[in-house]
């Protein structure tokens, strides 16, 4: 008997399809209350960090170099007070086989799929992760389907996403492209059900454990080269896996004094599910449209419990603007001779400003770069913006920036600044959403402790927030 494949029927079979597609029963981590056992979920991969390194290096993933950005450091020092301006370092993740740190995530997910006997893997992603899964599937001999949100209703595609489709196809994957909308998940589930493939979710424990090696390598390489851990590590944040995995790896390496900073491009005001706003964005990841909702409510992804829980680890969450990221991307090419993709340079843009807060003898490290190419480069991304009526000009991004309306290139590098998001408010918002989902503000000590860990705060903070919310 053929299964009904209409929207409601397929969505109704979500839990069952997912269970079959991941070989992981999330129920066993639930407490029956609000909390769940996050560390047990992470441990369920069965891999130690050393084993993950082995899995990754078998396909040439990881062990990427750290580049010292001497000219950008010198430039930042021109705008810092005397004695300030930390050395800016970047982990050159573009040198992974698929061109981004996402190869780390995919390596573990695809190896797990293979070990479990799946014939193929699937991922729902318009970004670098698709290329990473496709690349790993090619190396490990599995089939691969990538489902992308790519076009608006006029059939106009984001150049950056079209390039990602090309890359996936280059690796032999099938790419299914869709117009804007959250029902992508329906198409994804439906194909997952038909094929019986593995869901290589971005948010699975395999994926996040794969990023831990990045944080671990950062600590080891910095100690070897500079004799100390970086004062700050800046992570471009969207779904929060980069932040989570990197911070966990740093902790595993004992780098507990390193401050973890999340950075996103400010896209306030652009609705992520809007057909008309879709091509008004000039970057497709690393922005607040993903970064903020995933930080305050990680469990709305394609898995019951996300292994990416960035609010646990970030000390600050800063934003930069599209124009600033474009400027720094050009600066990286022109002053350092390193041409990389803009999305990955979000953290570098923040680091350029944050370096000025730190003394000269400290190090600030950006956790990644990403590859660049046709479509996925500031030139076509700015040209596309202009075609879509976005005004591009030099100015002061901190006052003039209007996402979807303009791109303000900083008048000079002194206009590159970070804005701190109100992290206390984000923690409150996390607690509010968690209580709302749970259906009650009456939670016991275990759940209070859980929320304190989830929000990198204290039980007292959680209690006082709940008291405030009750009113």
């Amino acid at each position: 008997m053929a299964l009904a494949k209409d929207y409601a029927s397929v969505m109704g079979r979500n839990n069952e399809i997912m269970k079959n597609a991941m070989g992981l029963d999330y129920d066993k981590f639930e407490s029956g209350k609000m909390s769940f056992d996050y560390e047990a979920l992470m441990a369920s991969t069965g891999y130690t960090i050393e084993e993950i390194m082995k899995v990754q290096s078998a396909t040439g993933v990881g062990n990427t170099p750290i580049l010292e950005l001497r000219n950008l450091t010198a430039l930042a020092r021109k705008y810092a007070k005397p004695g300030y301006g930390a050395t800016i370092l970047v982990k050159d993740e573009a040198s992974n086989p698929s061109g981004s740190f996402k190869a780390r995530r995919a390596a573990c997910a695809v190896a797990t799929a293979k070990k479990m006997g799946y014939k193929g893997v699937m991922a729902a992603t318009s970004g670098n992760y698709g290329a990473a899964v496709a690349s790993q599937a090619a190396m490990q001999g599995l089939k691969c389907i990538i489902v992308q949100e790519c076009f608006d209703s006029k059939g106009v595609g984001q150049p950056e996403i079209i390039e990602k489709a090309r890359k996936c196809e280059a690796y032999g994957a099938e790419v299914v492209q869709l117009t804007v909308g959250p029902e992508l998940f329906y198409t994804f589930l439906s194909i997952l059900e038909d094929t019986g493939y593995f869901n290589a979710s971005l948010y699975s424990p395999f994926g996040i454990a794969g990023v831990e090696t990045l944080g671990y390598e950062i600590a080891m390489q910095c100690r070897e080269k500079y004799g100390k851990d970086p004062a700050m590590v800046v992570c471009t944040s969207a779904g929060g896996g980069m932040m989570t995995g990197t911070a966990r790896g740093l902790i595993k390496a004992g780098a507990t004094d390193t401050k973890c900073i999340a950075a996103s491009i400010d896209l306030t005001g652009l609705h992520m599910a809007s057909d008309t706003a879709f091509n008004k964005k000039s970057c497709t990841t690393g922005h607040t449209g993903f970064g903020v909702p995933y930080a305050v409510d990680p469990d709305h992804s394609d898995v019951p419990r996300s292994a990416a829980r960035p609010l646990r680890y970030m000390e600050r969450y800063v934003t930069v603007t599209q124009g600033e990221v474009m400027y720094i991307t050009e600066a990286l090419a022109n002053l350092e001779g390193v041409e990389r993709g803009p999305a990955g340079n979000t953290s570098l843009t923040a680091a350029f400003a944050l370096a000025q807060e730190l003394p000269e003898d400290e190090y600030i490290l950006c956790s990644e770069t990403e590859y660049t190419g046709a479509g996925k480069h500031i030139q076509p991304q700015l040209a596309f913006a202009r075609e879509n009526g976005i005004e591009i000009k030099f100015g002061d991004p901190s006052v003039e920036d209007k996402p979807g309306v303009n791109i303000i290139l900083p008048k000079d590098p002194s206009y590159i600044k970070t804005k701190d998001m109100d992290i206390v408010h984000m923690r409150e918002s996390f607690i509010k959403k968690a209580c709302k989902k749970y259906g009650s503000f009456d939670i016991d000590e275990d759940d209070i402790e859980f929320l304190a860990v989830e929000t990198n705060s204290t039980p007292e903070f959680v209690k006082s927030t709940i008291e405030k919310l009750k009113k």
Partner: protein
Amino acid sequence: MAKKNDWVRIHRVVLPAEGRNPNLPEDTAKVPLEMWTKGFLQADAEIGDEVEVKTATGRIEKGTLIEVNPHYTHSYGEFVPELVQIDTQLREILFGGEK
């Protein structure tokens, strides 16, 4: 005319506007959810015909035939003059000496 086993691109409406998720922004709610994929054409056909293809993973997908031998057209885009201004400014600040 496209021949059986040609590599082609197809298009299909997955959900009509009326059948979409009820919690969409107004603009998205007004348009259908559309899909594109590629594969080997299963029988001779003309552009615009309803066809079946066998995709790279061996799935059979149905849709309207829109392109034979589909190719990429994304590029480095039109020239953006601001970029050379940035280059000039950066080199001036960093290597131009104190003026």
